[in-house]
């Protein structure tokens, strides 16, 4: 698939880059600067179709402008009656045939790419992640491994990773603009999509199907690291001891408060495939809190004290006892210290 | 306010025509009943494999419906071009709908 349109593509990438430089579009978020296989397939078609459309537009506008300049009714022509033309076979054939050809030029690569991206016959030879969409967070279960993450999806670069996606409630849609197009996450059937990142980095992911009030806050991150780092990370995650006591006293209080306030009835630290709430095993490594807030302690305390004001309609609100400021603060301390791996969004972001 | 019009005579040519038409319609009816019996018999006795039964049932139904439309509802007659167009249009949209819902809402 790659490179079926060499020259034009580089031209367009250049202009796309110009756009980025002009402040339009954030790196690792914009679809205009593809950094993964799916995004690149789409981008090829976007470029091809844009070229076709520009051609059509130029033709239409050319005729349009000529018509407007030449055939305006001028002074003294008030009674001029133009020749009444019924039509013209040749012309009409021409503007039927040319669009057909243009459409075919676009249709063929479209079909090819559609089949290419839908091909999951080799899924079992690659990494598989079972993705669950929830209002309003993402759960990632690494098939064949004994751990799960939420909100942050780690993948190795240069490799296909198959996402098997199912929703636990309403329809969501998983989208990582600069790596891959989107696919819906339905409640009744698993949809499979593969992604492949070319470069290391932290990529923004979004939910693209209206799923309730906090739909716009259902962000997540894809952390693409080198294959070696990925293996290291897997190892780190495998060896987490969920029972381990934190180092300092505040965090120890936090752990106690965490358990007391029945946080564990929804969340898990360590492996727990069926999750009511996000898995917190590597919470301290996460790039964001609740998917979109900067990972500061203050933000976390705010979240714990009143999640409703941050993510309206979320399912944590009201499902745990009211916390005192102190409790929240110590829980925050505890959670922020859950940092099982050296491989973090920060190290990948570089 | 209106007097009963059944005293009005209609000409005998017309009457004969109506009668002929009626005869055809009775034959149509007999065929329809026969088709129905065949369809029920096939399923009731279970003498055929599923692979053959379903297309056969559908064909029987389609022919029957053709009879209804063309004879009972006079779609074959003159002046029915527009109705026929609309029914075919509706059937086209109907076919697309049914095929899609039974094929790609598959899980």
């Amino acid at each position, binding site marked *: 698939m790659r490179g079926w349109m060499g020259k034009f593509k580089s031209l367009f990438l250049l202009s796309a880059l110009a756009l980025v430089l002009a402040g*339009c*579009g*954030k790196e690792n978020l*914009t679809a205009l600067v593809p950094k993964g296989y799916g995004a690149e*397939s*789409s981008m090829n*078609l976007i470029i091809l*179709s844009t070229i076709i*459309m520009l051609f059509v537009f130029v033709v*239409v*506008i050319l*005729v*349009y402008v000529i*018509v*407007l300049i030449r055939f305006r*009714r001028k002074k003294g022509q008030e009674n*001029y009656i*133009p*020749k009444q033309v*019924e*039509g*013209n076979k040749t*012309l*009409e054939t021409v*503007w039927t045939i040319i*669009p057909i050809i243009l*459409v075919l030029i*676009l*249709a063929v690569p*479209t079909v090819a*790419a*559609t*089949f290419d991206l839908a091909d999951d016959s080799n899924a079992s030879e690659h990494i598989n992640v079972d993705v669950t969409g929830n209002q309003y967070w993402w759960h990632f279960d690494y098939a064949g491994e004994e751990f799960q993450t939420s909100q942050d999806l780690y993948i190795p670069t240069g490799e296909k990773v198959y996402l098997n996606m199912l929703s636990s*409630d*309403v*329809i969501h*849609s998983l989208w990582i*603009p600069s790596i891959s*197009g*989107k*696919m819906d996450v*339905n409640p*009744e*059937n698993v949809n499979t999509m593969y992604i492949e990142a070319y470069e290391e980095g932290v990529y923004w992911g*979004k*939910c*693209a*199907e209206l*799923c309730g*009030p*906090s739909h*716009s*806050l259902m962000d997540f991150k894809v952390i693409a690291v080198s294959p070696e780092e990925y293996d290291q990370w897997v190892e780190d995650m495998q060896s987490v001891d969920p029972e381990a006591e934190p180092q300092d006293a505040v965090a120890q209080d936090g752990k106690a408060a965490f358990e007391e306030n029945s946080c564990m009835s929804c969340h898990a630290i360590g492996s727990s495939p069926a999750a009511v709430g996000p898995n917190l095993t590597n919470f301290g490594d996460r790039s964001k809190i609740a998917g979109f807030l900067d990972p500061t302690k203050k933000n976390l305390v705010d979240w714990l004290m009143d999640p409703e004001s941050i993510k*309206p309609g979320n399912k944590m609100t009201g499902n745990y006892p009211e916390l005192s400021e102190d409790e929240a603060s110590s829980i925050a301390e505890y959670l922020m210290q859950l940092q099982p791996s050296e491989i973090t969004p920060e190290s990948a972001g570089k | 306010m209106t007097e009963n019009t059944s005293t009005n005579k209609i000409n005998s040519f017309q009457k004969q025509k109506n009668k002929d038409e009626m005869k055809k319609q009775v034959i149509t009816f007999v065929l329809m009943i026969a088709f129905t019996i065949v369809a029920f018999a096939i399923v009731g006795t279970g003498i055929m494999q599923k692979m053959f039964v379903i297309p056969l049932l559908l064909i029987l139904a389609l022919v029957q419906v053709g009879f209804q439309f063309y004879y009972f509802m006079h779609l074959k007659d003159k002046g029915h071009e527009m109705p026929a167009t*609309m029914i075919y249009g509706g059937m086209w*949209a109907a076919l*697309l709908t049914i095929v899609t*819902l039974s094929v*790609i*809402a598959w899980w």
Partner: protein
Amino acid sequence: MSIAATQKRGFGTVLWDYLTTVDHKKIAHLYLFGGGFFFLLGGLEALFIRIQLITPENDFLSAGLYNEMITMHGTTMIFLAAMPLLLGLMNAVMPLQIGARDVAFPFLNSLGLWLFMFGGILLNLSWFLGGAPDSGWTSYAPLSIQSPGHGVDFYVLGLQIAGAGTLIGGINFLATVVTMRAPGMTYMRMPLFTWATFITSVLILFAFPALTVGLFLLMFDRMFGSAFFDVALGGNTIIWQHLFWIFGHPEVYILILPAFGLFSDIFSTFSRKRLFGYTAMVFATMLIAFLGFMVWAHHMFTVGLGPVANSIFAIATMAIAVPTGIKIFNWLATMWGGSIKINSAMLWSLGFIPTFTIGGMTGVMLGSSVADYQYHDTYFVVAHFHYVIVGGTVFGILAGLHYWWPKMFGRILHEGMGKFTFWVFMIGFHLTFFIQHFLGLMGMPRRYWVFLEDQGLDLGNLISTIGAFLMAIAVIVFLYNVVHTAIKGDKAPADPYDGRTLEWTTASPPAHYNFKQLPLVRGLDPLWIEKTEGKGKMTPAEPLGDIHMPNGSILPFIMSLGFFIAGIGFIFQVDHSAWLIAVYVGMAIAIGCMLIRSLKDDHGHHIHKEELEREAD
């Protein structure tokens, strides 16, 4: 019904007259009034959306309210503004264009109108009765099933009632075109706007039943515990998406084809040329309608239907570019070699060509399924459909309003203000929506209550909001123009534009029986033929005689009111069964009206020859 005449009579009489009217021209006024009102409402909602998105993480609207806002904006604009405005224009003009005195089913015509009105009111009552629907105008299950409160119930019943009205209107137009054309008005002599009305009605006829069924399923699931979309009991949420889009895609052609039709008439009138490639134009319209039924799954490329389905639908989608292209080029060719006069009606039509072409082209880009994996549910799609809907349908409605205003109301809209409106709206429109293509590609999904800071989306959204306010200014000027014209606009002659088609042979506004004697049509553009052959007037096809006209009736209004009451009952019976009384009472009223209608003979009345003779031409 001229406005001056209205003023001489008491308000009560006028009101009663409108409530009971079965005259297609007055029904048109009501459609325009209702549609116009809902357009302002929908526009106001659009402004709220744009204000919320003026800066990142704005808190002008709450999250829930924002979702209600977009849902009501989309639903209102499509079902309660654009379609009724178009139906209004069709009602006003189509019977005149085919030389008919009325429509086939005047009573049903009025029923369709009132069902739309009451459906629209019901839907909007939700704002005051516990919250509007909030699952998007597409109401995807299971979000719409789980949506708390009664919002989605209002959506279901409001659309069901309004939709029934539209369906009735469509059937009425079909029968009218088939049976009521004047002598000599063959199908291939009908003006393009009449053709568009006819084909649009076909689309309504085949598309709306799918929505009807979809809404029933949704209603059963929400109110009566059925399990169509309940995954736990084997339900399947994709069924809703199919049913919605089987309706939804033809719906967008329902919105655009009438605009295509009226642009054809306008281009040929103001170029003083016969429409180029008339036959091709007619067949292209049919082809668009036909293909329009085979592409709906392009809204569902990301659902996971599989590569075969996606490919088929992608190709079918792109194919629509061909007949639409034929239209664009035929319009250009109509103007080529013509004598183009530019007034406000023509300005809107000229503005339409580049705008719609851009919208159509982004449509084809969306049709490329793999590219759509990126575009889908982003602002790119929002940009696409506003380019075609605003740049096509709304421009079309405004063009049609300016063009036929004299025919409908007897006065000519102020040209200066008309041109000002156009330019401000045009600039505002492109400011608002062009940038949205890039916002989408830069990673901004649609239906986002807030966008986050530091994502490079701030500037684009700001520009977009500024554009929306320019459009608002333009709309306000247009409103002022309407009021100004009503009070001191120029009186219109019968044929202010050197017209070509039959509507310009009647007075402005026409007598309520339209034609004293039915005209004899001798070819395409009948009035033009008579003009070029020196007479300048239609030859009557019949001697002057009594004219048979239908009687007015209040029953359509009451019947719709009955359905409205029953609708409210249905919505609230979930809370308390006492509301079932409203269901019974409402249905009793509606069925009672039907019974009265069918049991009481209504033979209409005659306008006698002597009366007609007394009236001057």
